[in-house]
């Protein structure tokens, strides 16, 4: 049930060295592994535990998430525009599956 993440860059074109702001939202339950169901059984943990952003193949920002990150995780950060290329955002689930989203930046 992989859903498409939603990504917003504050600009499509940037001068070299300029900061670009990235905002991204992805649908995910972020089950903490600390809740119990009605029968008292612990609901197993299932979260997105890793996030990475690459620009033209080079990592500019990454994060490790714990269960205290809210459901449908939101992430906002910046990177320094160096070269044009795809902006690729990847989230890794506890079960090993990946959610990938992509945008583009043009450096002028």
């Amino acid at each position, binding site marked *: 049930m992989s859903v498409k993440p939603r990504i917003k860059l504050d600009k499509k074109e940037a001068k070299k060295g300029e900061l670009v702001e990235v905002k991204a939202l992805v649908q995910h339950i972020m089950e903490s592994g600390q809740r119990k169901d009605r029968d008292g059984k612990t609901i197993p943990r299932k979260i997105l535990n890793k996030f990475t952003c690459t620009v033209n193949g080079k990592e500019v*920002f990454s994060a*490790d998430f714990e269960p205290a*990150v809210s459901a449908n*995780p939101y992430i906002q950060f910046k990177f320094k525009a160096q070269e044009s290329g795809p902006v690729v955002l990847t989230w890794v689930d506890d079960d090993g599956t990946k959610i990938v989203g992509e945008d583009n930046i043009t450096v002028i």
Partner: protein
Amino acid sequence: MKRSFDRRQVLTWGAGVAAIAALGIPGGPAHAKNDVEEVIAKFTGGKTPTTGKVKLDLPEIAENGNTVPMTVAVESPMTTESYVSDVLVVTDGNPRAGVAVFHFSPASGVAEANTRIRLATSQNIIAVAKMNDGSFFTATKAVKVTIGGCGG
């Protein structure tokens, strides 16, 4: 998740009651001991971080304990000579201290990240930044998760 509340919870005074019941994390007493000290010590290798350079921005009072906006920013030129490499965010009142670790590099341009976090109860949020020279800086912010909103 609201549907699984029992009637008593739904009718209780105040917004936060619903928020706490709906949390993925069971609520505990304010400032209950969790593993916050161990997690920070592991991150710093036992060094005591210096207060400063780090800015934590969270609302003083959370609107919804399920999703509290949090921004962490660290003062740094973010050059290859001097940059922030990692920022640990922990809390002292959730059952487990860990929230997130952000990884930066000179390619980030600025050491700043924003996400939304779960707070089971009123507590402190602590950010610790690791610089590329091995030094550590920190900031703390108290957030109140209220149960009785009756202002006006």
